[in-house]
């Protein structure tokens, strides 16, 4: 399905004046209301959008904001968009493309796929430049048709994963690992060799386990201890032990073309909050449960 098929020239605006968020949203709502019979009034719709915006920001780091309203008994998907000459500020993110999407309460799949297509487009600098300078709705639709910008049937992991994630080499010392984890504030990361081949994973629990001997793990209860030397001495092992000594090498990862449901299934059944994304043996990304929550569920 082409993205252009969802669009109508009338609902695509170009705006060079300095406007507030509310003004931009009002313009988009007005366009839609003038053309379609909606279950709610224009002012009510605007209120819903602004209320939602307060709860969770609709902006993405690539400079696109996608406000979204689900309506009961509205069996359609409507899109209105505005290209802004003067970007809006969404808590530090400069947004120059606002896309309003109205959908039915039940169908989120089409919506998700449209969002994925829009996000992909917003990352493409060349395309964004062409669209921003298109000038009118017809040219935008023409450009999208010509370049065959598609709305995929299903969102795949490659669409929402973090690309080029932080990774660590097996021969890195624990000190280097500790530094990486604390500077990037991550609780775990993939392990790759020099060629980028995925070899395993290491997380903060693997690291802390170094300070706990096997026999302590066999105790039923440790509440009688207030301090314990081996744990405190973990830092003395930092340069003597390496990532390869503590990493896990279980082969639980996803392919970039894996579906959301497959990924969620793997995460839940293996109790993992993130998975490496591996293509032909090489690490290409990382998908966290929070990514899925934010980009798929909480939209």
């Amino acid at each position: 399905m082409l993205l252009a098929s969802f669009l109508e020239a009338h609902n695509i605006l170009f705006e060079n004046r300095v406007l507030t968020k509310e003004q931009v949203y009002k313009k988009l709502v007005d366009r839609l209301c003038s053309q379609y019979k909606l279950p709610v009034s224009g002012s009510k719709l605007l209120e819903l959008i602004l209320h939602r915006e307060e709860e969770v920001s609709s902006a993405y780091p690539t400079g696109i904001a996608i406000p979204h309203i689900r309506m009961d008994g509205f069996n359609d998907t409507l899109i209105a968009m505005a290209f802004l000459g003067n970007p809006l500020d969404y808590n530090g993110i400069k947004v120059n493309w606002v896309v309003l999407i109205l959908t039915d309460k039940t169908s989120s799949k089409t919506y998700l796929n449209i969002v994925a297509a829009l996000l992909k487009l917003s990352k493409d600098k060349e395309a964004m430049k062409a669209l921003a300078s298109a000038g009118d709705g017809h040219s935008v639709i023409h450009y999208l048709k010509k370049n065959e910008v598609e709305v995929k049937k299903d969102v795949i992991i490659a669409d929402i994963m973090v690309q080029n994630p932080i990774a660590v080499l097996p021969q890195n010392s624990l000190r280097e690992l500790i530094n990486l984890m604390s500077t990037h504030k991550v609780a775990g990361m993939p392990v790759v060799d020099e060629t980028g081949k995925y070899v395993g994973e290491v997380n903060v629990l693997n690291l802390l386990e170094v300070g706990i001997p096997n026999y302590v793990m066999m105790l039923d209860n440790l509440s009688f201890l207030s301090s314990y030397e081996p744990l405190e001495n973990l830092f003395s092992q930092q340069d003597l032990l390496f990532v390869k000594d503590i990493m896990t090498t279980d082969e639980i990862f996803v392919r970039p073309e894996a579906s959301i449901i497959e990924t969620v299934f793997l995460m839940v059944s293996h109790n993992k909050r993130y998975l490496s994304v591996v293509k032909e043996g090489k690490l290409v990304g990382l998908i966290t449960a929070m990514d899925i929550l934010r980009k798929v569920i909480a939209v």
Partner: protein
Amino acid sequence: MLAALIGGFVIIVLGVVDQSIAFSAIDWNVIFFLIGMMLTISVMRETGMFMYIAIKTAKIAKGSPLKIMVMMFIATAVISAILGSVTTVMILVPIVLLIAEELKITPAPFIITMVIAANMGGAATMIGDPPNILIASATKYTFIDFFLNLTPAIVIIVIGSLGLIWLLYRGKMYVSNERRAKIMEYNDKNLITHPKLLWITLTVVGLMLLAFIFQKPLHLENATIAMAAGLILVFIGSRKKVETIILNDIDWVTIFFFIGLFMIVEGLVHTGFIDLLANGVMSITNGEPKTTSMVILWLSGILSAWIDNIPFVAAMIPMIKSIGLHMQSAVQVQPLWWALSLGSCLGGNGTLVGASANIVAVGIANRNGYKISFMDYTKIGILFALESMLLSSVYIWFRY
């Protein structure tokens, strides 16, 4: 386990015995007793009482290594008399490793003496180690019979062992005051996480022991009592899911081992092999009870130092029954059973491979980087095995 189970079915396939006979040889009184005790022990562990006893013991000993060793020896023997030796070392060895690490002393002597105490304690009661429950089920001896006949012997042997510990380790272990202070700082208050669960458990276990003591007038079999206690505790006491306990805390490997074993022994009885052995023993001793007891005691002791005492006792039971038929009165058979129990439980201390508790404890130590070799264990174990065998001989000789 697999070997026992395969063996059990091989004798059926080969036609040594019919399936129905092999199955009827499975002693359900033993199987359900074991399951009941495993359920009871699972909830007892959950209360934290054993951790509490161990930590409290170390604190009462004020961190002094010899005192800890002596008091742990006694505590281990008492706990093992209720839990059996394998469970006891699985709970206590990690604690001893922790204490030794904190005191910066080598844990090997503590682990070795602890295993020895566990094997001794297990022999003291009917519900302790498996050989005793096998004997209880095969004879009509009750909990009280075991208590009156075996517990005094074990008390004497434990006292003797404490003397041996004093001779072996006195003045050999030094710990700085700073290290001792660490042990004294242990906060044992937090170990009993759910006092209510503890009281329920102690009440049910107390009732279970009373039921064992009065099992004759109450007409209750061992399995009934143990299962009743286990099921009550699991349903009203435990905070864990019943399915989790049944899956994780019942040692199914042991249960199937026993099932296979009963079938194999039935096969041996059917082939007449056991009768042959019995006649052999009788021809040496002329059926004289005291001499026969001594032969059984030392034969069990020496063999149990090398082979697992459970299959050994399972095979000896029909043999002693067969010998019993040649004796003039039932009273004369009695010392034979006690000799079998003492020999097979205490002989296991002789070498590293003599008992399951030894292998389990040394396994835990080795996994934690404290290597205890066959000789490390055996040169200590053999002393305690000899001491306890000699004291057992004196006990049986003068008592019966």
